[in-house]
């Protein structure tokens, strides 16, 4: 009934050559139904990196059309679009819908919680595996039906085309758009499968973190990565059911004739009038009740990981560890009462706009506190400028921009103007790409040695960072200006409107930067793959870090630790003057010098 215990698992799991010193131990099992959290983590990581390429290609399609409207797109155009590679308006809507879908549901959420959450949680808290290993494996394998559904949705009417937000009525009525038929149904099923996968992960992470911490690992000795993952899991547990319910409501509406969201008497594209009773704003409330917390699901784990990497590379304790924890908790709590800021112009009760404005302003506060604490962490440190650190610094630097642009949008009157313009697009790319994804790049370089016993190449890593950073800012910073210039998002051809015509050259510049950035990802992938086999070998703790994961072998064997680790201190004891000559760190397992 209950899932196999790790011990029982180990006895029948691998009788043959599972040597501890086999650096490829994890990789060799990626194609299997393994219940080892590390294998599952690597499975998630590889899958999401591949999906990153897919999502990136879709984005380049969008950028192509904005820079060279209606001109046939080389290579990708021929691959997907009809009419000699020209991007049609229907096709364009599909491109941005699926770009966001892939990036959010198949890259950012699973790479944070799925890949790093899985790999790191048991290792960092000193557990031998997750609380429910079988559930954990299922959470990975449920990604594949999701990927299949999303993949299949392309085959119907050119793919879903109602945006990642899928507002009904557009997404609810077949006749509303070519993609609102079967493609939209497949999309909803895909989201449901992702939700199931996330939920299984969430339950597992919460249980594991609450119950399976090694002796001495008190809550306030947990690395901030674990705090980030923990709070994320809680967010998922409370927010996801709402999305799932909303998804099913929309599914029923589309297939069984319910009317939750469709009001009566609408004539959509000459179809029969709708019968009615529904309210389209209901979907927006339900969707954002999940999706606002979800944007923090897409951020908090990265915040945690960056904190850990930054302390290690600055050789300094985290500045304000507890304020960091409280800020993350505050973000999570406030995250549940700000969803209406996506609906300021929706026509909801204007009094709600006022309350949501205040709560949204307040959520910028913990974000600011965290930023100051990161700078404080580096302040007076002995900084190492390696790839890990560069990406972590980029996280902070970019997050500042995303947080500050959030204030413009939180101000309702200002949001009236910039809502649904490129200003919004700039905002969320600064937080999701500028912050989260740079954090993930850093984390890949940081924990790679633990996964494969080797390091990734520093020179290539730095080039990747350099090009991505330039490409990123070149692509996304001008979007703020486009937004102020009033360029709406999701427009296949903005230049139809005379007041936007002069923005074409700027869009072309941005597209060139985006292409540069796209190609730079080849460096990351190449570096990742080649380093698995040919990277510089390293010992178990190459960064001289404190976390428990660094006291396990690289890669850790099934069961992780030779014996249950005992934790004596917090994870950030760097450069303590009490440390002996020649050493500037204390691993969490090192007993205090005074104790016998």
């Amino acid at each position, binding site marked *: 009934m209950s899932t196999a215990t790790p011990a029982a698992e180990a006895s029948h799991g691998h009788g043959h050559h599972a040597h501890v010193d086999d650096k490829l131990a994890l990789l060799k099992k990626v194609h299997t139904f393994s219940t080892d959290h590390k294998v599952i983590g690597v499975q998630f990581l590889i899958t999401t990196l591949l999906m990153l390429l897919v999502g990136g290609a879709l984005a380049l399609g969008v950028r192509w059309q904005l820079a060279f409207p209606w001109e046939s797109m080389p290579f990708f155009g021929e691959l997907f679009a009809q009419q000699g590679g020209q991007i049609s308006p229907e096709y364009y809507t599909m491109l941005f819908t699926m770009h966001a879908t892939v990036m959010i549901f198949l890259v950012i959420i699973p790479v944070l919680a799925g890949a790093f959450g899985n790999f790191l949680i048991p290792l960092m808290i000193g557990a031998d595996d997750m609380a429910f290993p079988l559930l954990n494996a299922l959470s990975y394998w449920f990604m594949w039906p999701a990927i299949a559904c999303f993949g299949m949705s392309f085959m119907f009417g050119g793919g879903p085309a109602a945006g990642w937000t899928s507002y009904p009525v557009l997404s609810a009525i077949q006749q*509303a758009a070519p993609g609102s038929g079967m493609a939209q149904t497949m999309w909803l099923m895909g989201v449901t499968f992702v939700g199931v996968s996330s939920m299984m992960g969430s339950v597992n992470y919460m249980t594991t973190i609450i119950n399976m911490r090694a002796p001495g690992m008190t809550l306030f000795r947990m690395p901030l990565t674990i705090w980030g993952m923990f709070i994320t899991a809680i967010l998922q547990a409370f927010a996801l059911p709402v999305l799932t319910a909303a998804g099913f409501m929309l599914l029923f509406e589309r297939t069984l004739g319910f009317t939750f969201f469709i009001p009566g008497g609408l004539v959509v594209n000459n179809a029969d009038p709708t019968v009615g009773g529904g309210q389209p704003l209901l979907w927006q409330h339900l969707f954002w009740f999940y999706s606002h917390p979800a944007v923090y699901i897409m951020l908090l784990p990265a915040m945690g990981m960056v904190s850990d990497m930054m302390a290690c590379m600055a050789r300094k304790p985290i500045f304000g560890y507890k304020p960091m924890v409280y800020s993350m908790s505050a973000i999570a709590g406030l995250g549940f009462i700000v969803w209406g800021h996506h609906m300021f112009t929706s026509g909801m009760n204007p009094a709600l706009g006022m309350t949501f404005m205040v709560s949204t*302003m307040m959520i910028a506060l913990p974000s600011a506190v965290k930023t100051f604490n990161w700078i404080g962490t580096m302040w*007076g*440190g002995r900084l190492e400028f390696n790839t890990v650190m560069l990406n972590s*610094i980029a996280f902070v630097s970019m997050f500042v921009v995303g947080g500050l642009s959030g204030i413009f949008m939180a101000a309702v009157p*200002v949001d009236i*103007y910039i809502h649904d313009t490129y200003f919004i697009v700039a905002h969320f790319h600064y937080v999701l790409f500028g912050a989260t994804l740079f954090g993930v790049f850093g984390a890949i370089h940081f924990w790679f040695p633990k996964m494969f016993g080797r390091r990734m190449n520093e020179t290539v890593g730095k080039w990747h960072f350099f090009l991505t950073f330039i490409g990123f800012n070149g692509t996304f910073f001008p979007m703020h*200006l486009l937004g102020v210039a009033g360029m709406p998002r999701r427009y296949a051809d903005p230049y139809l409107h005379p007041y936007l015509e002069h923005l074409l050259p700027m869009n072309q510049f941005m597209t060139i930067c985006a292409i540069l950035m796209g190609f730079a990802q080849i460096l990351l992938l190449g570096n990742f793959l080649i380093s698995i086999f040919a990277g510089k070998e390293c010992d178990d703790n190459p960064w001289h870090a404190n976390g428990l994961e660094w006291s396990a072998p690289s890669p850790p064997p099934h069961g992780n630790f030779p014996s249950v680790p005992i934790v004596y201190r917090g994870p950030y004891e760097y450069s303590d003057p009490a440390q002996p000559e020649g050493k500037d760190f204390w691993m969490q397992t090192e007993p205090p010098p005074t104790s016998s």
Partner: protein
Amino acid sequence: MKRFWCAFFMFWPIVAVILCWIAPGQNWWFPRGPSGTGAAMSPLGERIDDLFYMILMITSVTFVGTQVALGYVLFTGARRSDTSHDAEGAEKTWFTHGSHNLEVMWSIVPAAVLLFIALYQMEVWAEYRVKDKFPEEVRKGPQAEVTARQFEWRIRYPGLDENGNPLELMPDPQPTDLYTVNDLHLTSGEPVMIWLRSEDVQHSFFLPELRVKQDAVPGLVIPVWFEATKSTEYSLLCAELCGWGHYKMKARLVAEREEDRLVWLQELQAAQNDDGVPDAGDASDDE
């Protein structure tokens, strides 16, 4: 190389600031519109712009402040790591777990600023959306009803009485009503109201030069008021994804003096009531 990276992280905020600085001159800023300056073409829009600029000031100071702090921390941190930490005379790493006073300070100050921004915005929002606060002039009723549909704006005006004055606009279509597509004529120089509806999916009524945006929600009739300061033509477009043709819901708002608008309505009425029987001479050429 370390110094290079420090400079690298300082380089881009400088570029960002310069870019924003030169943006208005390069026409990368608010749409220049009929005024040619980019200033909002409505009184409420001007106040929205003021709020925008206020937030821009506050965020710019914060942006520059944090980036300078970051730069300082990076350069000094790079210098410290030139020597190994236990080398002779090495600069010590600052061993600290944080500072209570700093935490309190950098929580309270931003909290106060943010709360101030939020409260300071209320008034404009209330005037824009809360019905009790709508200006006196618009309470007498809407000048037109705008119905969005894929992919056009259908506009219904009340017909004119025998004296040439507009009748009251009824919630339901009347035989006397007048219709246009993608051509909204309203009075300039005074607050005017429209009813906004949608016939199929969500759309959003966006007048960039006037800083007006309101979603059209199927099943709801939403009153929207604004005031165009100048008699001229403005862009009207859709800001909520409504299908493949979302980008081409291009229309115009013609704001004109009330007399001119009445003349235009009369012509519209004449054209619409023209039964096409010869004698009248000219065939109807409505658009």
